[in-house]
């Protein structure tokens, strides 16, 4: 899940929920979803549900709380897929 392909996939899932003033090209692995990318809590849920669909995984409240950055999302997906 550390390869470029997966990062692109996750970015594609996040992009529709970015506010207009955030350039998708400016997003990095360290971008904080709420504080930097200004994604609100309602959209964060949509992103999590889209990730679940895309990777056929089930995320829990704990995963949601740990998912602070784009990199966190990649790590959580990788961990879930290994199970």
């Amino acid at each position: 899940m550390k390869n470029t392909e997966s990062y692109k996939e996750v970015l594609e899932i996040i992009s529709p929920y970015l506010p207009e003033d955030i350039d998708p090209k400016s997003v990095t692995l360290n971008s904080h979803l709420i504080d930097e990318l200004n994604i609100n809590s309602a959209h964060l849920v949509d992103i999590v549900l889209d990730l679940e669909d895309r990777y056929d995984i089930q995320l829990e409240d704990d995963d949601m709380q740990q998912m602070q950055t784009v990199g966190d999302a990649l790590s959580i997906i990788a961990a879930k897929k290994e199970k």
Partner: protein
Amino acid sequence: MENAFDHIIAQLPYSSPFLFVDGLTGLTSEYVEGYYQFRPESDFYRGHFKDAPVTPGVILTECCAQIGLVCLGLHLIENHIHAAKGVIAMTESQMEFLKPVYPGEKVRVRGEKIYFRFNKLKAKVRLYTADGTLACKGQIAGILNSTEG
């Protein structure tokens, strides 16, 4: 049967003149049904439209949200041990308006859960007039804001 749902209506954060729920007729973890009769004396009819009162589409949306989203949400919270008690704030609405609803008309709203995850509830809503005509429909979502935080 209807008295069984009075405790839900009592928890609604709205009051007259911005309460658009008269009663509920069905409520499970999957769907809710309720009704409201539009009061001809409601303030909004004085301005919508000039000399031609029609229920504003946004007021139909509010009726759909109060019955189809918030009443359903209050019920789901009751049955969801880990959820915090709180208020459901509307975050998104997507509506289509099909037929006008006039002062005094009684409408029936049905809300169906699409998902309730991570304190976000999304519901499909439909509003019917007394003759069974679908007057508006759509999807409404809200986030449960914890009163603890």
